[in-house]
């Protein structure tokens, strides 16, 4: 009689607090649960009564890793409510800043959180002794992302210069030129990352689900577009609630979502499956080299999709800088005229589609907020993946089952404290 009793309390190398519980006897699962136990922070309550100019500053604090995503979605929601259309220059700068976050977040996940699994250690720190080049490269790529964000917004974690209507401060063109060179060098570093990820032993597990991401007719969408689903096609942003359908479960302080099936996936793989055609050439080549084809239904491949997107973020940043250098930057009037109304902002945060939905009164004071976080949308899919995966690995030693389940949750790169905003 074989018993399996796994209780991973506070899973490591993820953002925030979650537990994995599995109890099985004689090949029968008695309990299997992904529990989210992070303390909720009540941002939707805290934003009420705040002036519009403070709202994105506070909303940024929903997440320390994807604060640029929250700031951007928050500003978009406010601009939508006030009927403000950001300028071409602002959109170029916002896209470039957004790429800094995609780069930093994906590098953090792939090189700091996942690679230790591959190399059989518990963290990136012992690799300083054994794989110094890899660690120095990881640090270098992270630093590049930080410096790019600093140039555009004063800093990366909780950016400063982004405001409703545009930017409170503009970068110098000479600084953009200088960082362009480093972005090109980083593409060479990414070749090394690709070689490293090639050696990653990715579990062969397939469970098709619904994949949801923003889609834009013009480009691989990060800060624009409508909601695309592999099951349901296109839904306009103002109908996002018809897609997300949030609900509460007692064992999770984070809300869950579902649409056409029991659960759906958002994030790098969902974007890849919906928008593969719009990736730039080098990113497509990297995906091919790493055996990633659209559509892909293996959640462990999220990490590989992140590598392809990292290459995309570098390619796209170089293109954006070229466009900015060609047209120059000029001070713009960011004056805001407030009005009563509701607005919705949506971006593709590193971990997936993110919605901010605000209602303002006629004085520009926020009266109602709703934020739907990527990881909230993935929690249910993680649970369903576990339910599909466990029966096929239940005959393995307990340690191996535990490790596979940890790797599965880690593959989603969950941002747990974000999901209990």
């Amino acid at each position, binding site marked *: 009689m074989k018993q399996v009793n796994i209780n991973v309390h506070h899973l490591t190398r993820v953002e925030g607090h979650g537990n994995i519980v599995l109890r099985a006897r004689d090949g029968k699962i008695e309990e299997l649960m992904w529990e989210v136990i992070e303390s909720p922070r009540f941002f939707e309550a805290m934003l009420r009564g705040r002036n519009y100019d403070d709202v994105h500053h*506070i909303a940024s604090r*929903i997440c*320390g890793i994807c604060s640029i995503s929250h700031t951007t979605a928050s500003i978009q929601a406010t601009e939508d409510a006030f009927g403000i259309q950001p300028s071409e220059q602002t959109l170029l700068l916002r896209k470039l800043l957004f790429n800094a976050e995609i780069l930093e977040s994906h590098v953090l996940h792939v090189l700091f959180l996942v690679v230790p699994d591959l190399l059989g250690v518990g*963290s990136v720190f012992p690799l300083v002794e054994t794989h110094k080049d890899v660690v120095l490269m990881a640090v270098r790529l992270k630093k590049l992302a930080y410096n790019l964000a600093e140039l555009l*917004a*004063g800093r990366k*974690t*909780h950016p400063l210069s982004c405001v409703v209507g545009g930017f409170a401060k503009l970068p110098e063109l000479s600084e953009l030129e200088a960082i362009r060179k480093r972005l090109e060098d980083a593409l060479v570093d990414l070749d090394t990352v690709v070689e490293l990820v090639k050696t990653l032993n990715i579990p062969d597990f397939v469970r098709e689900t619904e994949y949801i991401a923003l889609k834009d007719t013009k480009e691989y969408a990060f800060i624009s577009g409508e909601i695309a689903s592999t099951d349901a096609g296109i839904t306009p942003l103002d109908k996002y609630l018809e897609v997300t359908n949030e609900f509460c479960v007692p064992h999770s302080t984070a809300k869950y979502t579902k649409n056409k099936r029991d659960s759906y996936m958002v994030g790098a793989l969902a974007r890849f499956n919906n928008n593969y055609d719009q990736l730039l050439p080098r990113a497509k080549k990297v995906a091919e080299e790493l055996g990633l084809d659209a559509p892909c239904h293996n959640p462990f491949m999220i990490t590989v999709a992140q590598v392809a997107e990292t290459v995309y973020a570098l390619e796209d940043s170089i293109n954006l800088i070229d466009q900015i250098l060609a047209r120059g930057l000029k001070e713009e009037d960011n004056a805001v005229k407030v009005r009563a109304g509701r607005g919705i902002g949506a971006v593709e945060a590193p971990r997936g589609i993110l919605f901010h939905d605000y209602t303002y009164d006629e004085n520009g004071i926020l009266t109602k907020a709703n934020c739907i976080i990527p990881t909230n949308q993935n929690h249910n899919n993680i649970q369903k993946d576990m339910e599909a995966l466990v029966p096929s690995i239940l005959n393995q030693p307990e340690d191996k089952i535990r490790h596979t389940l940890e790797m599965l949750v880690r593959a989603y790169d969950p941002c747990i404290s974000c999901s209990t905003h």
Partner: protein
Amino acid sequence: MKPKVAFFDFTGCEGCQLDALNLSGEELINLLNAVDIVNFREVVTEREDNYDIAFVEGSITRESEIPRLQNIRDHAKVVVALGACACIGGVNCLKNHLPMDEALRIVYGKDARYYDTIPARPIDALIQVDYYVRGCPPITAELLKVVKALLLCRKPEIPNYPVCTECKMADNVCVFERGMTCLGPVIRAGCGAICVTSGRHCWGCRGLVDDPNLDSEKDILKKYGLTVEQVVEKFKIYNTYAEVTK
């Protein structure tokens, strides 16, 4: 033997821990030569209950967090509060303006009964804190400065003068001259006035200086035709806890 350093997180965004990793290769290698990082859940699998210095991020917002925090105090020789949530309560305390059941109802609606929360507090409301690394998020260089001082058994020197001093040194045009409200005259420096340099105003994330000159702030507001209410609304964002406990 190298001192053992641990990182812990309570209610917050984990941005402080993330920025602690915003080091150059050389800084990271030097740091790992000087200390053993024995507990850092966000990036490390191994854990140990034997540590000398504990960095604690986040504020306290649930009953269940209190014994966990006290346990850390019992184990650590030195406790350092890391970031605005741990040092002064930070943005989490904005919910303290509401009854807790209303905050629960706004967020969870009919399912509010599943969940619990208490008014947010900085960690020194519950345990003794030895040092503070302030800011939302902290400046990584200041964090390193504190680590270095602790390794040398010295008291870290953290400014106790207002942001205005650093803002002038940064050659910024005064925010009040630009017709906006700023908390710089009463908030503790150490950030290099990064928010003003980036085109905004001081938001107060490092908390008040020890002996704030509130009369002077009022005089400035009067001079520029601004009201105390306007500045209090800004002050609340990070300093609700200080405001309501006074």
